């Protein structure tokens, strides 16, 4: 381990260090409000390291710096996710201030655990070795389990336990898949797996052999848990409902982003040769996730559960991009699929965060997560309601919103990859989802409120909400800058 390795790891390390600092600080200071401010300000350090790494990359011949015994890759792809996770984290911390102030103790741990988990997510996007992937995954998941149980009431505890158990189970499945892959290739390095498979695959069998096929399926299952894809979505509604709402927001966007980062890296780099097989697998999972997520969401009366199923549906939309590989092999190589996933992840992040931030503020006032308690919010909290409505419209995919551009981009990729049927399933699902998203808007604007009390909102959650809301509009009207960055980020997957 050299000093350069440390430099490559600096964003992750500084985030984790920040977590420790926050926890220590919590013991010595009395005014807990400072903790959030320090967390957000402290994120400038990993951000600065990431920017510096990004600039240094332009000097590298193949756009990648490898370190830490070939397990860590710093490239535009991993840095893209570092920026995304830091951004999400900053917004979620800002929005947590009021929510957390009601928790009597362990406020430092709340922010600290979030930071630890973030360092795991950032690491996850940068690892190129199966063992390191596993470690990063656990680093991501364990703090989240603790956070899910943070409220200490029965719902929250159930959420924590459920997340922990199912996370452990999915890790076990994932490890088994990794073991099989290792057994067939003799290496845990993603790039080397690609080379070994290239020489030994038998064209007549899926993935070259049935056992390897099983291994890959198990890895899909393991990752499927992280991104909340059907049929690995069982934990989602209960955990989303029971967790503290800011954690639900964090879980729904950051955890998902990290999951897709590692899926793209593993499948595009290690199993690129077998893309036709797993692309079909992802296409089917995608269609099932979209459909089931949407249909079940219709029946929900709790907004957190509704958004939980909506997140399952959006995992389906995102997998459209993963499946859209357009046969990496001979003709018409396209980066549209993966870059579409990256764009959609950002679009989904701003959209879902905006929605959750508005929900946090409203629920703080009404003390309820039921959709019916949003009655008359158009009058009680005009700005909040407008942003929440806009976020829901973005989730539904109507212009001019980030969600529309994301779907346009992603479905374009699928169409280019001859997945017209999947595009049709996707757009029809979007139309179906109108029903439950608009149900919330209807309640906010067309049902009389019980009282006319205004909904208060603190300074920093308000800023976080405005940033996210503005993000939806900007990405919906001027998506090009982000598309360019996403294109640049995924270039590494196609070397």
């Amino acid at each position, binding site marked *: 381990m050299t000093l350069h390795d440390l430099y490559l790891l600096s964003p992750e390390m500084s985030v984790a260090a920040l977590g420790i600092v926050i926890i220590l600080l919590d013991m010595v200071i009395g005014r807990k409000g400072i903790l959030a401010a320090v967390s957000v300000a402290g994120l400038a350090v990993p951000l600065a390291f990431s920017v510096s790494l990004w600039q240094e990359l332009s000097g590298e011949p193949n756009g990648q710096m490898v370190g830490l015994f070939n397990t860590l890759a710093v490239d535009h792809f991993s840095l893209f996710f570092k920026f995304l996770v830091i951004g999400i984290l900053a917004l979620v911390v800002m929005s947590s201030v009021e929510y957390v102030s009601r928790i009597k103790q362990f406020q430092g741990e709340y922010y600290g655990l979030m930071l630890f988990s973030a360092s795991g997510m950032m690491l996850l996007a940068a690892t190129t070795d199966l063992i390191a992937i596993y470690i990063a995954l656990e680093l991501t998941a364990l703090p989240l389990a603790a956070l899910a149980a943070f409220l200490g009431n029965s719902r929250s505890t159930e959420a924590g336990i459920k997340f922990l158990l199912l996370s452990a189970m999915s890790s076990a499945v994932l490890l088994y898949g990794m073991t099989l892959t290792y057994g067939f290739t003799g290496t845990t390095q993603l790039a080397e797996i690609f080379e070994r498979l290239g020489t030994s695959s038998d064209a007549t069998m899926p993935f070259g052999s049935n056992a390897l096929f099983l291994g890959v399926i198990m890895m899909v299952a393991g990752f499927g848990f992280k991104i909340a894809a059907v049929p690995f979505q069982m934990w989602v509604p209960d955990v989303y409902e029971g967790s503290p709402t800011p954690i639900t927001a964090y879980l729904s966007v950051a955890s998902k982003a990290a999951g897709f980062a590692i899926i793209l890296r593993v499948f595009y780099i290690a199993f690129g040769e077998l893309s036709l097989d797993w692309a079909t697998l992802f296409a089917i999972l995608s269609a099932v996730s979209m459909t089931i997520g949407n249909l079940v969401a219709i029946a929900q009366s709790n907004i957190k559960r509704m958004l939980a199923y909506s997140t399952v549906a959006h995992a389906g939309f995102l997998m459209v991009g993963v499946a859209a590989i357009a046969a990496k092999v001979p003709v018409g190589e396209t980066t549209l699929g993966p870059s579409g996933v990256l764009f959609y992840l950002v679009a989904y992040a701003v959209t879902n965060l905006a929605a959750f931030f508005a929900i946090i503020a409203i629920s703080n006032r009404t003390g309820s997560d039921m959709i019916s308690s949003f009655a008359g919010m158009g009058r009680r909290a005009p700005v909040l309601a407008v942003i929440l409505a806009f976020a829901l419209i973005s989730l539904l995919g109507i*212009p001019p919103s980030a969600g529309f551009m994301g779907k346009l981009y992603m479905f374009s990729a699928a*169409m280019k990859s001859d997945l017209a049927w999947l*595009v049709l399933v996707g757009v*029809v699902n979007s*139309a179906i989802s*109108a029903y439950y998203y608009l149900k919330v808007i209807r309640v906010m604007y067309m049902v009389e409120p019980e009282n006319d009390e205004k909904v208060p909102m603190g300074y920093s959650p308000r800023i976080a909400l405005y940033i996210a809301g503005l993000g939806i509009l900007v990405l919906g009207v001027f998506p*090009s800058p982000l598309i*360019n960055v996403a294109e640049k980020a995924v270039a590494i997957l196609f070397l």
Partner: protein
Amino acid sequence: MLSAIVFLPLAGAMVILLLLKDARQIRLWAAAITIVELALTLVAFVIFRTADYRRVGDMEMVEVYRDWIPALNIQYHLGVDGLSVPLVLLTGLLGMCAVFASWHVQVRVKEYFMWLLVLQTAVTGVFVSLDFVLFFVFWELELLPMYFLISIWGSGRKEYSAMKFLIFTLLGSAFMFVGILALYFSVGTFNMVELQSMSDGAQLIIPAGTIFAFLFTAFAVKLPVWPVHTWLPDAHTDAPTAVSVMLAGVLLKMGGYGMIRVAVGMFPSKAQEYAWVLAVIAVISVLYGAVVTVRQTDLKRLIAFSSISHMGYVLLGIASVVGMGGAVSSVGLTGAAMQMFTHGTITGLLFLLVGLVYEKAHTRHIPDMGGLAAQMPIIAVAFLVAGLASLGLPGTSGFVSELLVFLGTFPVWGWITALAVFAIVITAGYILWMLQRVFFGPSLPRFTNLGDATVVEAVPMVVLIVAIMVVGIYPSIISDVFKQGLEPIIQSLQQVVRP
């Protein structure tokens, strides 16, 4: 110029949202915006009408910003030709009428006028977009204002109707979206002008017939034709007056416009191949719509069903694109386009008047009414004019467009057209019967205190009656423009005509 026309109402809406508070101010502001908008669209129309240097197939007043989304070659591309410019004018016309028709809205005035103006931006955008994605953006954008306008300011089962409208359109546009992407990845452009000359006969990644069917479905939902028309009567019945005016007047035209420019324009050979399907659907719509209309007892629902019948004529005109004896006549298509314009003005006026009658008499139930001509002579006369135009009386615009449709279609689909012509008789029946039951006969004592139209209410009436009469007496003021805009489509149809 076009950007200004498209975004002026949106800018007006933003001002309402952020700056204006007082209901009276908001009304005046919205009226001012829409009057300026009407003036702008009129200027655009006049410029287009009087320009003589134009070549066939050229777009006018083009505005392009190429680097909107270069990764997918999506451009901000606006332009008009003879097909779209009258529809832009129609939107300006009805947009203004809608504001005047909303003068009495008391509930949540601010939001109401904001959405009304946003709606106008969206619809105008659809007519002037030359980039397919931009077209789709405006097409979808129109859903939100409509949803809110119907479900907040509507009546009856307003929320159900709004949702039904939304889901129908979204499902239709889902198919359009697939079609758009399939075209892009086959031909490599979203430019609608280029697509017109490139799509037919190109190597497509999904069969041309399927894409044609997808696009046709999306526009058929909007037009609407049987059997995807069921959202229309509900939406119309429950919508507030101004929204009915916009819905019947311009929103349905988006369907017809898309059908001509996109479905037929991009797939001339498929359009000819499946023209018989179009003709059959059209005649079913025409007859079914007419027959069902006769049975209606709700004044507004009656007009709504008559819309289905009248939109069937549009589709019938489009179905005439099959060449006879090696030549494709432009008469049928011109008739279809004319029918869109005239139906916009006539039915817009009818909905306006129904709204007025309802506001004063507090009922739309036809059996409860009678003799209203005595109390509201101005409204009765206007209603009479609109009704007669609707049934196609010579001298009104309705006559011209229906005549053109039948003239164009008869040589191609003789029997089918003959059946459709029969609907004229039914139309005359239900219109005259309705007029008689509502306005004539003995005047009822409970209506004695009703007033006539006020000045504000009379403004849109006069404007629309003028439009109906002018087009009726001097049809070529519009039809020449349409004909010229349809020329490139006729030419491409001519090229693929089967002997």
